């Protein structure tokens, strides 16, 4: 155990976490230069393209230092607020963390909240200033921010360029010397924590865990404390770039376990693994059963693809336990599924994975949160979708979820951000200067306002210099109404939204205007109306299509014209016929882009 170091990397998106991980893999010869590709640990295409880590990854590095062999377990964590619970469990599996800050960007909200998590767990923090070679780097200013935050000595901050491999040796040195060896007793009862699981279609779920105490052997019978499930350990091993089976693993180490588990949802991140016959008395603290925060309908474009969509969602759920769903019916869209997601990014990821991995073209409806509706008869119902809303006369009152939001920004954007949050019905709770030019703002905000275009607006109003983190803090009473949209007189239930009463009129108007832009002109006129109950509050008209021909000179360039038409056709593939009106996918999300 003396020679094991378990560490993670805390960094904001684009601050160079995956690149640094690549360099560490190279430096320790964990991967051959020849086999090296960028962002090696991010193995989903989506992760590579977006430069984000969606799932946790663990990899073992071997390193010789002062003639001693060391085992370094690097645990790569997701970098988005939607996955903050997974991050907290990864952090709890480590004794140390590299705090990677982009020298040209400075510290961001996500980084701070993860850093606090790491400090709470007592991790040794190694501050790393990355991208020091970039022309825009502000080494002194960002160093000051780090010093303020960690109360450390300037000499403790490592200056690194992960891209060019500068300073990697110093990081390795620091990891060995500063990060404490794991504590624990290999002879004690088994106490291990699940911090990730990976679905393998041939072998079932691979459970990734950290052992705090005891020893796990191949063939053992183990129990998962929270799910109370019992399994036979068919295989255990360590995680190199490929898995390496072992006969046993001891306290302090990180490894995987295979025991024919069929579905990812059987495994809960944060759960404790112990032996069935000699269980530990100490469950690993901090287990939470993560609940979805955002809900939206997912529908096939063609009704006949309903069963295929169900099969695809089932398969997705095999490796994404945080996705939940149940069948739902919409008058406009037919049969589909109401799905629960951890957050907006998670929702986007699921939609993209359905398309890429399962070739499903889907329509996603306006996201909603979970409202609590108290009825006049004294009962309470949960509302996940506008269609769940009972008639107004039956409602006593409604409660909506509130979050504690933390925003870190440059001082010059404070005004804009406060205005945005007030527009979103937020209440400012605190304002703290982290340095001369960086401010932390704390707000109470309704979660339902965050799912409507909050991120995009925050980004534009702060020119990208604001980072955002949140946690659910409770429910409060709120005046909410259901806003309906009618196309040529027919109510399109999938376009309905639950909005605050005071905003409803303006929303209705803007939504109609937005829909007018988004609905393709058809051979007849389309009336767009917004209503609350039976009252029409806004109207727009899409004129009938009269002319659509490219009468330009394009010579022998047949290809361009063909591709253009094919692209247009493809864009309309995701359209849904409601009554006689064709509605494109974007229209179902118009409410999100209402003020663009």
């Amino acid at each position, binding site marked *: 155990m003396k020679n094991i170091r378990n560490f993670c990397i805390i960094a904001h998106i684009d601050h160079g976490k995956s690149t640094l991980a690549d360099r560490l893999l190279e430096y320790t010869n964990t991967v051959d230069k020849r086999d090296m590709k960028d962002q090696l640990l991010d193995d989903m295409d989506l992760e590579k393209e977006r430069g984000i880590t969606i799932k946790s990854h663990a990899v073992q590095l071997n390193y010789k230092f002062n003639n001693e062999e060391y085992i370094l377990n690097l645990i790569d964590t997701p970098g988005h607020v939607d996955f903050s619970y997974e991050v907290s469990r990864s952090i709890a599996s480590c004794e140390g963390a590299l705090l990677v800050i982009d020298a040209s960007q400075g510290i961001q909200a996500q980084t701070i909240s993860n850093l606090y998590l790491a400090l709470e767990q007592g991790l040794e923090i190694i501050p790393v200033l990355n991208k020091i070679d970039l022309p825009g780097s502000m080494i002194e200013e960002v160093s000051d921010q780090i010093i303020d935050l960690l109360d450390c000595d300037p000499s403790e901050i490592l200056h690194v360029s992960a891209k060019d491999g500068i300073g990697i040796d110093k990081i390795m040195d620091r990891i060995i010397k500063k990060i404490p060896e794991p504590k624990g007793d290999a002879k004690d009862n088994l106490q291990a924590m699940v911090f990730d699981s990976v679905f393998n279609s041939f072998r079932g779920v691979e459970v990734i865990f950290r052992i705090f105490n005891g020893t796990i052997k191949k063939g053992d019978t183990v129990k998962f404390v929270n799910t109370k499930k019992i399994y036979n350990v068919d295989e255990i091993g360590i995680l190199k770039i490929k898995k390496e089976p072992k006969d046993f693993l001891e306290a302090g180490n990180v490894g995987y376990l295979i025991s024919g588990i069929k579905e990812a949802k059987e495994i809960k991140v944060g759960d404790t693994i112990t032996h069935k016959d000699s269980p530990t008395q100490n469950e690993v603290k901090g287990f939470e059963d993560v609940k979805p925060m955002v809900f939206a309908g997912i529908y096939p474009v063609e009704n006949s693809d309903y069963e295929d969509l169900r099969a695809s969602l089932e398969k997705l759920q095999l490796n994404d336990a945080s996705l939940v769903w149940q069948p739902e019916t919409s008058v406009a869209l037919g049969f589909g599924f109401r799905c629960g997601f951890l957050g907006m990014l998670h929702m986007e990821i699921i939609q993209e994975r359905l398309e890429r991995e399962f070739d499903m073209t889907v329509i996603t409806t306006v996201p909603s949160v979970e409202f609590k509706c108290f009825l006049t008869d004294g009962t309470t119902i949960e509302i996940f979708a506008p269609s769940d809303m009972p008639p107004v006369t039956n409602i006593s009152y409604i409660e909506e979820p509130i979050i504690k939001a933390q925003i870190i920004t440059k001082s010059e954007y404070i005004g804009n951000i406060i205005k945005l949050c007030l527009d979103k019905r937020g209440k400012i709770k605190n304002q703290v200067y982290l340095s001369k030019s960086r401010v932390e703002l704390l707000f109470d905000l309704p979660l339902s306002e965050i799912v409507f275009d909050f991120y995009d607006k925050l980004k534009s109003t702060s020119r990208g210099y604001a980072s955002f983190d949140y946690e659910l803090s409770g429910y409060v009473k709120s005046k909410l109404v259901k806003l309906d949209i009618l196309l040529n007189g027919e109510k399109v239930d999938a376009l309905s939204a639950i909005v605050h009463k005071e905003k409803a009129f303006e929303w209705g108007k803007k939504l109609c205007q937005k829909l007018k832009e988004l609905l393709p002109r058809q*051979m007849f006129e389309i009336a767009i109306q917004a209503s609350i109950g039976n009252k029409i509050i806004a109207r727009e008209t899409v004129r009938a*299509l*009269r*002319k*659509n*021909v*490219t*009468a*330009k*000179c394009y*010579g*022998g*360039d*047949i*290809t361009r*014209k*063909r591709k253009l*038409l*094919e692209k*247009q*056709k493809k864009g*309309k593939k995701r359209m849904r016929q409601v009554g006689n009106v064709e509605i494109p996918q974007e229209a179902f999300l118009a409410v999100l882009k209402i003020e663009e």
Partner: protein
Amino acid sequence: MSGIYIHIPFCKKKCHYCDFYITLNKNNVGKLIEAIKFELILRKNFLNKNSIETIYFGGGTPSMISPNYIGNIIKEIKNNFSVNSNIEITIEANPDDISLDNLLKWKKYGINRISLGVQTLNDNLLNFINRSHDKKTAIASIKKISEHYDNFSIDLIYGIPGNRYDKLKNDIKEIIKFNPPHISAYNLTIEKKTVFYNWLKNNIIKKENEREIIKQFNLLKNILEKEEYIQYETSSFCKKGYESKHNSGYWKRKKYLGIGPSAHSFDGKYRSWNISDNNRYISALNKRIIPNTEEKLSKKMKINEIIMIGIRTKWGIDNKQLITQLKYDILKNQKNTIDKLINDKLIYINRTKIKATKKGSILLDYIAEKLLV
């Protein structure tokens, strides 16, 4: 039965609507012509020894380079390809390049058709779209051409912001006095990477009102129809027997070889296009490399081409052609879509052919999009 297109990428000025590859730098005209000749030789077998029925000098402005260059290129083609005796050889020309000397030289070298870029006869609008000629020059050039050439075409643009129905009417009347056997009338289309696109984005100009454009298009059609012009493609009108053989080749999916920077070629299976950069084009050809990109057409792409081009012509989408060449029966496979389009009075079926109705003729992209596979 094939054609050769030669792209001459030079202009005096760039028109504000133009998104073709052209340059205002005339320093390397000589080198470019040499490179074009190299390309002709390198690709002499491209058309599989088929006889050449048409040659088309387009651009850019082929009329602004010395007619000797044009002569050299035609000579090079004749040396390397088998050329049909009644070949159509067209040159695109700007009114300000029409001198008697040019007209006679071109004729001597074999040019027998001139496509004149008049666009409009309104001096303000000519200035607005950044053409280098005025009305007077345009009229004089049409007159001169009509005196020396039997076959010529006038290019017009309708839907220019600021133009009006009645002004356009006068333009057409003035032009048809010279009895041009062919008129191409294009709708001003604002493409990315043009001055107009920029202006539109910055609210300097506004898109022309749709009703006005439709009015202008219908006006053109009505006048030309009365004067016995046949609309054989959405933008192309001609007197009987005066279809552009070269352009018809594109629309009938005949093979063609495109020479010069940014030129497109088609050999029946592949479509390819040359690099849109004079210097890189010249340096590649100096190394005897053809700087092009090609795309093999899948069955689906071929079907889509036939649909998209066919609906634009008076010949229509020929189901017999689709069945024999591609084993695709559009009338059977797309029955629902076709029935709906017929019901909307946008298309009709004449034996094996799908054709656009008058109402459909201004909704061709809508129809094509519906029918694409």
